[in-house]
């Protein structure tokens, strides 16, 4: 069984959904998580705070430097992740399709390196 990372591709500077809309999305996401667990495909899932809450830590020549904000600023940012177990890409893409339906955002599906 392989493991896949489902990344929520969130547009930078997009309007957050209205409260009642958000509530509906959260219910759909909860249902998606329940489905993953029932299928034995669940590993982990979680939403992330906005990129401006991030801190970048770098160590150069033994010295630690901390920087405010995301390392790379782009048109999209990582809004949340979900890790699933799936036998192959087709199965992982099917989970990706369900996640994209629940969240109404594009989902990137990528496999973990395995030995």
């Amino acid at each position, binding site marked *: 069984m392989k493991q896949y990372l489902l990344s929520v591709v969130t547009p930078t500077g997009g309007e957050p959904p209205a409260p009642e809309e958000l509530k509906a999305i959260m219910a759909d996401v909860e249902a998606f998580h329940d489905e993953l667990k029932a299928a034995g495909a669940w590993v982990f899932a979680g939403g992330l705070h906005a990129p401006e809450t991030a801190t970048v830590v770098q160590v150069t020549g033994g010295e630690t430097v901390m920087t405010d904000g995301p390392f790379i600023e782009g048109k999209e940012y990582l809004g949340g992740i979900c890790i699933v177990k*799936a036998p192959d890409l087709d199965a992982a893409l099917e989970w990706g399709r369900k996640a994209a339906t629940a969240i109404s955002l594009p989902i990137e599906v*990528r496999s973990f390196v395995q030995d």
Partner: protein
Amino acid sequence: MDEPRVGAREVERVFRAEYGRAVSVLVGVFGDIDVAEEAVQDAFTVAVERWPATGLPPSPAGWIITTARNRAIDRLRREATRDERQAQAAALLAARAAEARDGEDEGAVRDDRLRLIFTCCHPSLGTGAQVALTLRLLGGLTTAEIARAFLVPEPTMAQRLVRAKNKIRQAGIPYRVPYESDLPDRLRAVLSVVYLIFNEGYAASSGDRLVREPLCTEAIRLGRLLVELMPDEPEALGLLALMLLSDSRRAARVSPGGGLVLLADQDRSRWDAALVAEGQELVRRCLRRGRPGPYQIQAAINAVHSDAPSAAATDWPQIVVLYDQLAAITPSPVVALHRAVAVAEVEGPAAGLALVDALGPELTGYHLSYAIRADLLRRLGRDTEAADAYEAALACTGNAAEQDFLRARNREARGGG
């Protein structure tokens, strides 16, 4: 002593005919494309050495598959001696390979090739990668041949293939015929890869025709394979029919000077009668299924052209009906444009022009829409406007034969206006 010799050309022929079959069986056994390709190439190296002396084995494909499998097992065992875990994996593979030997009936081989086609044309791969993999693994074309046909440097094509194979392995693209619910979409992807290969060869400009025409032959070979593997898919039949009917006109669509000859001006005695007959029979066969699709309808349109002994005798009303059907299934501005051409033949150029002018902005930059508009204007005697449209068309195509044709028409329009 006088036994027929097996020369390099004979081995080459077997290679082209059987490479895809052998690779797909070996991928099925070992679960890895690189292992499979390497093993099959090893087997052909042995064949080049042995066959001239021993003669062709009774089943060259079976010989290649068995030899490749044994080579791959030897290699895996050798590499596994270092590591206990690898040794176990190799033992498992060898056992599976031995099992596979017993179950090697023609049906199983057929399924392997079908799996490989769906892997090569998986929607998670880019179109360029799908095309390259299909030609390499199923067509048995060398990387150099594919690179030449697509006018890219060989290292670029080699890298494209390596990346695609890495993605298959790393992302876990399955080696499997898709689930029933995914099959229509996935089949569409396979058919469009084969048709794209055909069109790359068919639309080739005069200068590089020689290196690109083999793509038509290869696409038709793949089309025949799809029909053999999926005899119940009418769209696979439709695609093959469409390619055969288009290909039947290959000799007639190029003038001795290398220029483009339009359908209406072609010498119909130069159409390949055998290809026309085969294509028309396939059109009848698939339409009987009563599950029309875009390839079947396009093939039917081509069959109507093939039926006509002269351009003037073409059953244009029938073609308009078929374009109406096509537009109902796959509405697109390109379909609407071709329908306008057929309408112009039935109701006159003014009616066709009205339809072309009513098309939306989606066709901006598409050379054929300007060329068709130019032709309709020319037939209406509006030469200055026609010349402007020919110039717009010229600015949008890089194909040398098409450019020559448009320049000639443009000169005529300017001269007459």
